[in-house]
Structure formats: C-alpha cells, structure tokens
C-alpha cells in the first residue's frame, strides 16, 4: 500500500462519512459503520495508524476522531432511532458529508 492521504482536520460537530473501503489487514474501522454518516463528537489527537503499526512499519501519526452515529441511521428498524453509537475512527477513513 502506498502513502495515504491524511484527511483535513474535522471540527467537533462536523458531518463525516465513513469510507466504504474493504482493505485487508489490521483495520480498526468496524464494517458495520462503513458508508455511514455521523458527526464528530470530539477530536482525540494524533495517533499512529494501527494498519501500519500492526506490521512493524513506521507510521506517520493520524488524527483520530470520536464519531457519533444515530442508531436509526445504522440499522433498519432500530429499537430507538435517536439512541447513539460512538466509535473512534482514524482520519483516512473519513470524508466530509
């Protein structure tokens, strides 16, 4: 894999979409969130990319975000659509929504 583009810094509240990629390897973005839109809950700061770290490769730090999704946006027939799911997503998995 070549160098990745590091996404712009999203501010808290920014609407973001999780890229619907399916790369192999040690990926920390759950499949159930890919392709879905949420809002940045807080910016956690730069962390090494686990997709590189897991294979002993040097990793430029990436911005890590906590992104909040509505359960109603994630699941058809959600029990309570306004309940939420927060997850930590690295910058290269996010694009503006």
């Amino acid at each position: 894999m070549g160098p990745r583009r590091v996404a712009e810094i999203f501010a808290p509240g920014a609407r973001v979409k999780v890229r619907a990629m399916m790369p192999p390897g040690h990926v920390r973005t759950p499949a159930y969130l890919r392709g879905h839109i949420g809002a940045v809950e807080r910016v956690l700061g730069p962390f090494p990319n686990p997709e590189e770290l897991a294979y002993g490769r040097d990793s430029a730090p990436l911005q890590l975000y906590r992104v909040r999704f509505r359960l109603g946006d994630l699941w058809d027939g959600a029990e309570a659509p306004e309940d939420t799911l927060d997850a930590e997503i690295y910058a290269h998995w996010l694009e503006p929504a």
Partner: protein
Amino acid sequence: MPHDHHDHLSPSGHPYRADQDGPLSYWQAMEIAVRELLVEKGVTTPAAIHAQIEAMDARSPANGAALVARAWTDPDFKARVLADASAASKEMGFDIGPLKLIAVENTENVHNVIVCTLCSCYPRNLLGLPPDWYKSREYRSRTVREPRRVLAEFGLDLPNGVTVRVHDSTADMRYVVIPRQPEGTEALSEAELAALVTRDSMIGVGVTRQP
C-alpha cells in the same frame, strides 16, 4: 481408568469436563517459543513474568469504584474526570500505565454502555480483567444493534425518555461509565459510596447497589 463411563457424574452431580489434552494452537506454541527465547537471551526471567501476571490478576474494579465515588462527592474532581479521565486516575494514585481513558456520565436522561466489537478492549488497569461475556460474540454484536434488548436481559429496563449511548471501543481509547449516584446517599462517606459501585455499573450494563 476409574471414570470410563460417558454419563458418569462427579460428586457434585455435574458431568466431568473433558481434559484439555488437544495439541497446542499455533499462537499458544508461538507464545511459549517467544517466552522461552526471551528468558534464554536474558531479556526477562520466569519470576518477572509471573510477577507481571500476578499484578494483572490483582487489578480489580475497586479502583474504578473509588474514582466514581470521588467524582460523586467532589464536583471539581468530576469535571476533571470528564475532561481527562487518565489524568484524574493518576491524580488518585492509580498506575494506569499507557491507558487513555474516557469517562462518560450517566444522567437522568442519558445511559451509557461500553462494548468493543472488534476484540475485547477494556480499561483493565482500572477495572481488572473483563468478564467472559464482555468478550463473547453475542454481547459484542448485539450491543451496537439492539442495546435496549441487551440491557433488558441484564435486568435494566430503560424508560423511553432515556437516550442510550453505546460506545464502541474501536481504537486507542478505553471507557468507563460514571453511573448515577443512588438517591438518598448524600450523607455517605466516599468509602461507603465506593462499595455501592459495581463493575457492571461501570461497563453500563447495570446500575449501582442501593445501600
């Protein structure tokens, strides 16, 4: 062989469990090989490994309970916990190692619950080892999809006015829930309050004990 009947029961009335005599898995063999190499090369010693295992086993939810009780009784401390739970834990003297901790607070209107869908991330330095169910595929897959049903199975029925916030511990953070303080406990000491804080209330699948 003394126990050669398949339906033989132990004195406690339960079936004998089969011995785990199968071959080592790939990763079990890898762990032994790496450990023995580290010892042979003088990087570590069996005593140091054993001491580390004992230290890990000795961690318990008591540290988390003390943190919660302090947050209940000291509003300034609670503000610091919610801003940076790692720093607040260190302030209490807990050695949390590299743990990056986020505390989420339950209120009248919000109930938080923690899960790690990808593996079993858990604030071990503060709560000890995770319970087996926390690592089960069922808990991990259902909590993000039908949290209210899962919580009901734990005995927690949440009114519709309460928003459930599920936290999937997908990367570098670990999470602890600050449960609601039981009503009528304002006069209790910090130590008495800590005794009301259960492990499950800090994962978010339970509430605190009543005094």
